[in-house]
């Protein structure tokens, strides 16, 4: 039995932290940090307690509690929680990885004057993210979905005096908004056709039972619209453009929001509402294709990137593509498994990058880093572990979860399988490139007074914690916990061997090119035109900025002009002008000359006389 208060405490303690910070501790950085950490730790502990209760019961528990939020005769929208193994697993990721990142942030943000604001925003984000995980209906989920978008906006543009950071925040928010336009339409459409016995409903459990009554074609449209939301939040092609720019935010934000949790919310949404998609083979096929295209495209972009955080961002995109592909191939289990392990090692990599950036005084270009493995041993070794896990090297966690996805693909769609496997090679190549350039080579000779030190313990402890998780993630029964009733997964030896060999080839190739640390990028010559194409990110950004600045703004200007010319000048001023002209004309008649009046009088009389005579 789960204590019914636990999900609510887990839900609201970060919000409480956020409010307390905003109201009382804005001037004290350390107490703000403490409050935020307390908030997320409370959530984590509650989640652990729930996990133990759920894991020890057979069959797996699922329970929900809700209360009305909006209620009158014609409409009820509830506010509630739906707790099941899937939600608990996601919650463990959010609060567990979250706790590590919150603690790390205390060190990373120690010198920032607005650290209190940072922790308030971070807590707000945690609250919103937990809201997505626990929501038991679509409207509530959408509410927190939007709040996550807002907190992401606030955190990306945290250093808002910087033009690029402010722009990146706006971009992230707008791309997500645009995607949510589809998502919200989908929610409304689903609601309008839902018939759950007592009218319409937004609740997942109600909808899951009655989904069969909906016309398949209409359900297909709903599925695609809901997937729009996923494309935005999980940054799939063609709406992936915001994520690399989002790296303008402080690094812990990139780790928490743009690697481990928020961007994974889309995957979670698909898994949570998989009952909609289960029967929609065409829609699932589209989803799988979007996923694999994202995986491949992002991996190619990561190869030519020089900014350490952006490389990781493209890698995140690519891995999210894997997860979306898994869902599209009908494997929510595989997708969620990879989501979990990815959260461990990607958060680790980002925090490692943050540690490097911290040590190098905000240097992010990998070509300006050298021999970090020796100078920052803990960061270096944990970063290596993260890299290997991401590349899917046996026996680290990434190996197991990626293998599940590849086995699934080999089973369902051979083309997708091969693309995904080759993408694994690219993954190993760009991660290898990053590692050899920044960490491997000999340390540069230091200028006096600029010595590079390992980060403080408050930052390295979370690294070690996440590194441990990245190592053991494949052995702690995550798949079983996620879907207790599903049969045990078995290792597909052929798939595992193929992907391992390709990953090692990727690492080896990058070693050959980069281990001796060429002074400039050798790929530039070798790839030629392709290099230019990649450097320009396939021209997506150019296309969008053309759309926003020329097309959309042009259309808006056209309307503005229409308003000025037709409504104001011709319409309003036209009427007033006509009135004035008539008035002016009539005024002329009033000349004040007696002769004029007399002649008018005579003319009128003559006119009347003729008229009368005619009639006679």
């Amino acid at each position, binding site marked *: 039995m789960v204590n019914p208060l636990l999900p609510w405490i887990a839900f609201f303690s970060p919000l409480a932290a956020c409010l307390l910070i905003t109201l009382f501790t804005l001037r004290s950085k350390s107490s703000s940090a403490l409050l935020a950490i307390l908030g997320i730790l409370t959530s984590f502990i509650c989640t652990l307690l729930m996990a133990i209760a759920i894991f020890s019961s057979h069959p797996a528990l699922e329970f929900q509690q809700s209360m*009305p*939020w*909006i*209620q*009158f*005769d*014609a*409409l009820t929208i509830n506010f509630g929680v739906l707790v099941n193994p899937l939600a608990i697993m996601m919650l463990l990721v959010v609060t567990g990885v979250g706790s590590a990142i919150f603690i790390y942030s205390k060190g990373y943000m120690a010198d920032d004057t607005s650290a209190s604001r940072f922790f308030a925003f971070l807590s707000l984000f945690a609250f919103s993210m937990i809201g997505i995980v626990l929501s038991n209906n679509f*409207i509530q989920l*959408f*509410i*927190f979905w*939007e*709040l996550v978008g*807002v907190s992401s*906006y606030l955190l990306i*543009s945290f250093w*808002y*005096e*910087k*033009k690029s950071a*402010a*722009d990146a*925040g*706006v971009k992230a*928010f*707008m791309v997500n*908004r*645009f995607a949510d*336009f589809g998502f*919200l*339409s989908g929610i*409304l*459409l689903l*609601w*309008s056709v839902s018939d759950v016995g007592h009218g319409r409903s937004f609740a997942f459990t109600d909808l899951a039972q009655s989904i069969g009554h909906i016309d398949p074609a209409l359900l297909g449209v709903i599925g695609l619209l809901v997937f729009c939301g996923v494309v935005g939040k999980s940054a799939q092609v063609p709406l992936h453009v915001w994520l690399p720019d989002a790296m303008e935010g402080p690094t812990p934000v990139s780790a928490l929001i743009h690697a481990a949790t928020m961007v994974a919310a889309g995957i979670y949404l698909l898994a949570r509402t998989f009952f909609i998609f289960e029967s929609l083979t065409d829609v699932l096929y589209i989803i799988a294709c979007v996923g694999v295209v994202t995986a491949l495209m992002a991996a190619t972009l990561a190869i030519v990137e020089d900014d350490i955080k952006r490389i990781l961002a493209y890698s995140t995109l690519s891995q999210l593509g894997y997860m979306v592909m898994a869902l599209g191939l009908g494997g929510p289990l595989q997708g969620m498994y990879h989501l979990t392990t990815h959260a461990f090692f990607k958060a680790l990599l980002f925090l490692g990058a943050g540690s490097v950036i911290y040590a190098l005084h905000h240097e992010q270009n990998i070509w300006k880093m050298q021999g970090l493995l020796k100078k920052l041993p803990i960061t270096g070794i944990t970063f290596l572990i993260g890299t290997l896990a991401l590349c899917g090297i046996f026996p680290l966690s990434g190996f197991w979860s990626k293998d599940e996805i590849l086995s699934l693909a080999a089973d369902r769609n051979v083309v997708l399988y091969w693309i995904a496997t080759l993408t694994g090679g690219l993954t190993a190549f760009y991660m290898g490139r990053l590692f050899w350039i920044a960490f491997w080579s000999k340390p540069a000779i230091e200028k006096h007074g600029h010595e590079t030190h390992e980060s403080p313990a408050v930052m390295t402890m979370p690294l070690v914690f996440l590194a441990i998780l990245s190592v053991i993630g494949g052995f702690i029964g995550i798949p079983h916990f996620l879907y207790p009733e599903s049969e045990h997964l078995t290792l597909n030896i052929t798939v595992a061997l193929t992907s391992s060999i390709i990953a090692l080839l990727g690492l080896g190739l990058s070693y050959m090119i980069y281990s001796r640390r060429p002074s400039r990028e050798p790929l530039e010559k070798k790839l030629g035109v392709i290099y230019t194409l990649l450097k320009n990110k396939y021209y997506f950004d150019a296309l969008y900025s053309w759309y926003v600045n020329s097309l*959309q*703004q042009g*259309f*808006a*200007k056209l*309307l*503005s002009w229409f*308003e000025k010319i037709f*409504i*104001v000048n011709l*319409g*309003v001023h036209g009427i007033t002008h006509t009135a004035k002209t008539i008035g002016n004309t009539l005024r002329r008649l009033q000349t004040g000359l007696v002769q004029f009046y007399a002649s008018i009088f005579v003319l009128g009389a003559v006119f009347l006389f003729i008229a009368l005579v005619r009639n006679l």
Partner: protein
Amino acid sequence: MMIPCPLSLILLFPTLGMISIFFVPSKNSSLIRRIATTALLLPFLLSIWVFTSYNHIAGGFQFVENIPWVVPFGISYHLGVDGINSLLALLVGLGSFTACLASASIKDRIKEYYIFLLLTVIGTYGAFLSLDIFFFYFLHEIATVPVFLLIGIWGSKYRDYAAMKLTLYLTAGASLALIGLIALYNATGLQTFDLVQIQQHLINHPIPVAVQNWIFPLITVGFGITLTLWPFHTWAPVGYAEAPTAISMLHAGVLKKLGAYAIIRFAISLMPEAAHTWMPIVAGLAVVNILFCGLVALTQRDLKYILGYSSCSHMGYILLGLACLNVIGLNGVVFLMFAHGVMATLAFALTGFVTDQTNTRNLDELGGLGKRLPFIGVCFSMAALASAGVPGFGNFVSEIMVLLGAWDQYCLYTVLAILGIVITAIYMLKVIRLGFHGPLNPRLPSVLDAQTPLAKLPFVLLLAALIIVGCFPTTILKHIDSGTKPIAERIR
């Protein structure tokens, strides 16, 4: 606690305040300000009291005061509140009190300024509280006329044009509506302007549909002009832009809602058959409002013009909600009237603050104000997010209800209306980005954030209201629902 005749008291306090300001020498500006503030604080508190003690389970009109006045024409001093106007009276209270606090930057002809301001507020309160159609119309005009002077005298650069345009438009609308109301008066054959009696009578003796069909558009378009119905919206952006801060707040936030209120009370509720004929056209125009004005807002560089077009765009949701002719839509509309009212009041108050500090409203001349005006910056960001329909603020709740209400009848329009929310986000984030984020514009004069609790009070009050109704919608939804239920039954 029981207060006798609370509604009359609400009207009495500002009237007393106005009269006493007459007798204060104009040099004594601090006394004038104090009198005006008190004369608006007391009715604000009373409106809170009325709202909280309104019994929404019993429903109907409460706190009724009815004194016959011109008996032969059936004109009476008839006040009363139901779930709808008890909430809107609260909006007037909130808007007028904060507008008064935001008038501190007015420095010349203070005496006249506050007299006109109080007169406008009296008219607005009276129109919302009155259950007599004659008095409604009369007080609505009382509220409109001083606005002409307030803009014309205390406005900014193009105040003459703006004041004239706004007043001519509103008067034209009001005259159209007047024809409609007189026709309505004749059509009932009751010889009374009393709304309650007319409502009772029409339940069993509805106006013939042919008659309804030509009265309805007169009233709807007439009051629709107040509500910036496209293409009669062009008075609003320029009017709000040139008006002094308090008037922009009061007009965009509160006075405008009189239009929607009148359409609910007189058009939809009394002529339901015609409503079903005409409202689909209104729904179409509503979408034009949302998208057209939203896109035009994208091209503006002047802060107040952006807010003005934004306000026109948001009125589209109110119009769309009215066109739903069902409970969800109506509840959404009344909720949105309150939420948008508070948000618009807040946004114009903040803009006024920024303009007073920087002497410019042009976004290109602002930039990076967040560091210098942290409090105002935070409030502005929250107002912008509320306007963009972010959950947690009242606007989201009401927009969702309007969309849900509209979906069945106007599926395509609803989707376009959702697109409108995206457009709002674009220009609102642009305002934040260009005004408050980015590097500080070096040419800006030195600016001072709101320091004292009194200076922060209006912003805090308005934000608190937005957040409370956004997080706990039932606080006002119970009232709204009790008010719209009888109307929804009539239009079924």
